[in-house]
């Protein structure tokens, strides 16, 4: 492993740590708070809209500035998403995700942050991995049929 590779991995770890701290500070890790945010037609708590606002407040200018870059600080390629087509997979997948999110108030990031703290988060994470494994089987099946 060379220095650049090591530094990239170190920063991946630091990014994960900071990301997790942000999820804790913002209260995104609180499933009850998430459900209150999604309770638009009931007793709505709009707080979590401010999480997205805060993230985009810094993300929009900094991602825009970075768009011209094709290499990282450590001279590795930047993988910009290349898909642009809106298809059934995008819509159906997002709808299923939204249903699951509304049911338990967990999305993947907060579940991982709490995985050592609450058995519910551990159970959710294991189920999440099962759902993802199921998708791999489904995707494999589809690509074999082609």
């Amino acid at each position, binding site marked *: 492993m060379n220095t650049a590779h090591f530094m990239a991995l170190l920063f991946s770890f630091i990014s994960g740590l900071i990301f997790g701290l942000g*999820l804790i500070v913002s209260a995104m890790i609180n*499933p009850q708070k998430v459900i209150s945010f999604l309770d638009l037609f009931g007793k709505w708590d709009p707080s979590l809209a401010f999480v997205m606002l805060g993230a*985009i407040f810094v993300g929009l200018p900094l991602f825009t500035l970075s768009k011209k*870059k094709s290499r990282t*600080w450590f001279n590795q390629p930047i993988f910009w998403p290349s898909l642009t087509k809106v298809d059934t997979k995008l819509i159906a997948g997002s709808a299923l995700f939204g249903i699951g999110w509304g*049911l338990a108030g967990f999305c993947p990031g907060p579940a*991982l942050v709490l995985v050592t703290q609450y058995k519910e988060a551990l159970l959710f994470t294991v*189920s999440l991995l099962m759902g993802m494994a199921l998708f791999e089987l489904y995707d494999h099946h589809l690509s074999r049929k082609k």
Partner: protein
Amino acid sequence: MVDLTEFTPFSSFVGGIIIGLAAVLLLLTNGRIAGISGIIGGLLQKKSNDQVWRIVFILGLVLSPFLYTIFQPLPPLSIQTPTPIIIIAGVLVGFGTRLGSGCTSGHGICGLSRLSGRSFIATFVFMLAGFITVYIKHFF
């Protein structure tokens, strides 16, 4: 009706800024989009040979509460969802985020910051599905 008793716009905004900065940091140092479902999902694909950055990022996420609790205790939270619902929700979120190529972080934060049309649609759809799901839950 808006519930202002639990309203925390300031801390949520600050937390959002921290999340946004972490996403930009991952992009500039590893060239990757900080989409948590994509980072986990890549671990389940045999073909990918870039597993280590994923594992250490996830390790950072998992260890973040230990760093937080050095300074103050974790905010108390209550999880009232029954076990079977948690399992169903987990499977739906796992399958759905892979089929739809992203979750709250990849589409909702990074995608919207990149002004991606796909992510705008995805975010609209999962928020709408979340609103409807919580609305329907009131009847049970």
